[in-house]
């Protein structure tokens, strides 16, 4: 399996939205490659005809009755919000410019 370069580490950090320092990136490059080395043991195992397991208890979907029941109040749901406006979370603008609210 391929080794991770410094550029790969930076790319994965960005995908994961982790802001890492130079030190952290350097250390992770070594550590992640050392951990990936441990994974090579798996390449020797033939799994071509093996089905993957995503969950271990053989349950089919269990549905509950579709009835309204009490949930968190607005106040409770917003109680940990760093910033709120009325009954809403304030979120950072993710679209640039003045007309961020415009339709697409």
């Amino acid at each position, binding site marked *: 399996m391929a080794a991770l370069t410094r550029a790969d580490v930076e790319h994965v950090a960005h995908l994961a939205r*982790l802001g890492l320092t130079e030190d952290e990136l350097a250390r992770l490059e070594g550590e992640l490659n050392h*951990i990936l080395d441990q994974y090579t043991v798996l390449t020797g195992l033939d799994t071509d005809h093996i089905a993957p397991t995503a969950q271990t208890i053989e349950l089919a979907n269990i549905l509950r009755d579709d009835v309204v029941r009490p949930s968190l109040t607005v106040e409770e749901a917003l109680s940990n919000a*760093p910033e709120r406006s009325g009954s809403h979370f304030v979120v950072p603008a993710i679209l640039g410019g003045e007309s961020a609210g415009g339709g697409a």
Partner: protein
Amino acid sequence: MTDLTRLHAHEMTALLRKGEITSRQLTEAHLDVAERQNRALNAWLVITRKEAIAQAYAADRRLTQARKSGAAALAQLHPLCGVPVGMKDLVSVKGGQATAGSKILKGYIAPFDSTVAARLRETGAVFIGKTNMDEFAMGSSTEHSAYGPTSNPWSLDRVPGGSSGGSAAAVAAYHIPIGIGTDTGGSIRQPACMCGVVGMKPTYGRVSRFGIVAFASSLDQIGPFARDVRDAAMLLHAVAGRDERDATSAPVPVPSGLLSLAAGDDEAAGYLRGKRIALPREYFVAGMEPGVAAIVREAVATMERAGARIEEVSLPHTDYGLASYYIVAPAEASSNLARFDGVKYGHNDRSSGEFITDYLRTRGAGFGPEVKRRIMLGTYALSAGYYDAYYLKAQKVRTLIKSDFDKVWAAGFDAICAPVSPMVAFPIGSKVDDPVAMYLTDACTLPVNMAGLPGMSIPAGLSDGLPVGLQIIGAPWSELAMLRLARGFEAVTARAPWRGLDPAELHLTDDPKTPSPIDRKARLARASASGPGEQA
């Protein structure tokens, strides 16, 4: 009066029902010792005295009322009514903190009860506080907590195991008779083993995960710590069972037999007779401490002398457990932890005013090094071009690991016995900078999570004065049968010299001059920097 903290939970139940003690007395005794010794142990992230006293009063009212109404009313109460309990700090308890050992959840106050907390509340159990843990349950030593390490009461320079190290240490130190932990790859069994207490990871789906901070959703399970098997069974009984709010909690009945394990040692010894126990040869791994292997083999021999039939078996894919686990768990973790974006709760940095920059800074500052490693691993394993090579491959290996176990059950075995940890508790700082060495401490526990099976650790003896556990692994939903085996082993070793010993350095925790685990960590780091062999 005798020291109330030394009682088992089932003894507390009996005394509470007779009216010989009150929950208030019990609760205060436990709060006092937890508050006094926490500086030296750092087992607790918060001790909730005020709320605990209020719960104790309420439990006393229920007990008094029931006593007046007669035996039938008393029997209606759950045995945990009035009994102190502690919970790992990733269990949501309404109105209280749930840091998950992370800075990113510092200051967060849970606006709702987890199902585990709600069920315990219903029984009348008293919540003493929240226990220390590796950040987001990622770790095997509790050293990855953002709030400092926990010391092992058997040797204060050593770790209690992890990730539920705070609960294990608090139970071992008599701060609580029973505690709640979670186990994703060994995080209940390994600290139970290293602290010399009982710990059980139930079958995946046995206990609702609703309101538990998620790590790896297909592997996480909640379970009990206790100082004996009967208490562990009682706590499991209180929290287990189907919950509509967790779609993976299974509609499997919770056996009432969990509350009636044999009290007498003679009767309990009978639980071992005629049972077929498998001993998997791959679990005596290279690098296992000889003292640990010897105690596990002696424990199995003891079971055999008590009438169990032991047969060696092979679980041929055991060696692939570590690699496949360290793909599946980080992959699920990287997905679960994407929710920490600083918008709805938790640490947030909005200093730049620029969305991506603030997002990166929030997560970069909020997560600790091990969590970052796992998020990076998981993100990589799931990223375009690598999914088949890593994540899909690991899920296929998971099928093979599970089928190894299935063959053992199909052959008619009642349980598997194995080591828990290949080593006794290790010194603080000795593995924290070597992730692979740390991961190897879970080699014998994580295949059980990969297969979704119940597993437990029970005290089996001491090696160099430090606890060693015996692992019992069962077929799905066989917790009662496993607890009976464990109770049988407890009974036939009731007079063993290591039984009933106090953790060797527990007495030091009362001394205000005893250094805190944070001071120990600094001292041990200085000692190891000054050269090998210098560690105290």
